[in-house]
């Protein structure tokens, strides 16, 4: 007779999601840059913003209130509805 145990996990069934194709060009893309509020993350993002604008993209800047907590739902919603691409910067 086999033994039965109960699953102690959250039983998350992660749906298989395929990655989007890489955009052929940055021209016309709206790129969100999310600063997670770690020190000097803004320095890195400033550089990125310059390069992206040169490449023809529109850049929007966002910031988490604190790096210790996930981004608030409203912020995630705003990014999702107003950007076509997102870059999240982790600095340390």
């Amino acid at each position, binding site marked *: *007779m*086999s*033994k*039965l*145990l*109960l*699953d*102690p*996990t*959250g*039983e*998350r069934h992660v749906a298989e999601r395929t990655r989007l194709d890489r955009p052929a060009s940055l021209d016309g893309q709206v790129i969100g840059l999310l600063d997670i509020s770690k020190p000097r993350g803004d320095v890195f993002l400033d550089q990125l913003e310059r390069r992206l604008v040169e490449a023809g993209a529109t850049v929007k800047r966002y910031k988490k209130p*604190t790096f*210790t*907590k*996930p981004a608030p739902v409203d912020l995630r919603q705003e990014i999702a509805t107003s950007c076509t691409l997102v870059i999240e910067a982790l600095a*340390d």
Partner: protein
Amino acid sequence: MSTSPAARPVLPDGFVVIVKEECETCRMVAPLLAQFECTVYTQDDPTFPHSVSPTHDADLSVSWHHDIETVPTLIKVMNGVELERTVGWSRAEWQRITGVHGLGDDLPVMRPGCGSMSVDPDLVDALRARFGGHVLKARRIELADLDDEMEALFDRGFTDGLPVVPPTEERVLRMLEGTTRAPDEVVAVVPPDLVEVTVEKIAINAVMAGCRPEYLPWVIAAVEAICTDEFNIHGVLATTMPVGPVIVCNGPGTRAIGMNAAGNALGQGNRANLTIGRAVQLVVRNVGGGRPGEVDRATHGNPGKISFCFAELEDGSPFTPLATSLGMPTDANALTVFAGEGPRCIVDQLARDPDSLANTFAACLRTLHNPKLVLGFDVILVVGPEHARVFAEAGWDRDRLLAELHARLQLSGEELVRGAHGIAEGIPEHLRSATLPKFRPGGILVVHAGGGAGLFSAMIGGWANGDIGSKPVTRLVGN
């Protein structure tokens, strides 16, 4: 499911008697069962008693579902509903319920019955799983006969590095007896995966941690407390600092479940202390998905991240208990969660007056995380009984001790600015002329615990405090 839920058998109208042949009282009343119309269920010998045609309650389904604790039990049923029952033999009760005058007049006035087989300690867990297993919604994990269940649990990543108790249906149902809350009730949403955790999932992890059922309400309260925005278990888990949830328990319930607040309270050896804290961490690991090397990015961690839970020694303490000082009713069962590192000893074996001892406390507390960093971290100060006695004899209570400590921990900006004392770490230069407190108001949490011998106390450093990090959270412990 290993078994399908058995429907609750309906009792036939009239009189129902449940007996077992092994019971002397049942054998004594057996001849009476032919003297009035009744349905007899027998638990052991299918032919007992021979004078009637008994129904064999072979799987104890009737006995289980109708909560038979003693045999014989006489039940009066009308329209499928139980009206009344009597257990054991009471001549007056049997005569009154059956309405049969003279029933058993030759028998003694009263005889106690025997334990029903449905509450036999050797059978009850299996019966609970057979008849109550359908309430468990968790996915089943099937192991082959030859699987070593301990190794199988390690292989699946369910453990904290130590063996866990395999969570069988029997054990989880027994654990759920420790709470009145429904198994499918959602208790909290657990980071980092933000998964809803039910009472059942907490019970599964409590079984694995080694808890007894009576600890479960404490585990549930602690899970609720850490999964608040104030405590921020997401950040506590993810941080590179060596912190985890430290659980301080208060109230008479700590003594009822045998928690240790005395010698070695912060150490090994007490099942309640160790397994409550461990169960909480297993919930974070298994339900929330928070594992070292993944979202848990601790540089060093600390051994308390396996479990760090203890009770306050309230008897003989000169201080208001921690939970009461944080707003809970006096003598309530409550716990406080604190994002803390491992404990460090504060030694002072010579102080006999409170000022001298407060000086030692302040000098040690100043060094927390870095002597030049202020206001960013809270601390739990665990005052040992021999140190507490010094304050008690001088009439210092919690408020007085805290006021004296805060007064001693006002630090000059000159001492703290970056570069001072040849140490780069410190506060910005523009604060050079300021006087700054080491701790924010409320940033020192005083707890009384420890053994009766030893002029020692302990300090447990915190993590980033306040809105950007973690605040201590206190919760009542329910049933």
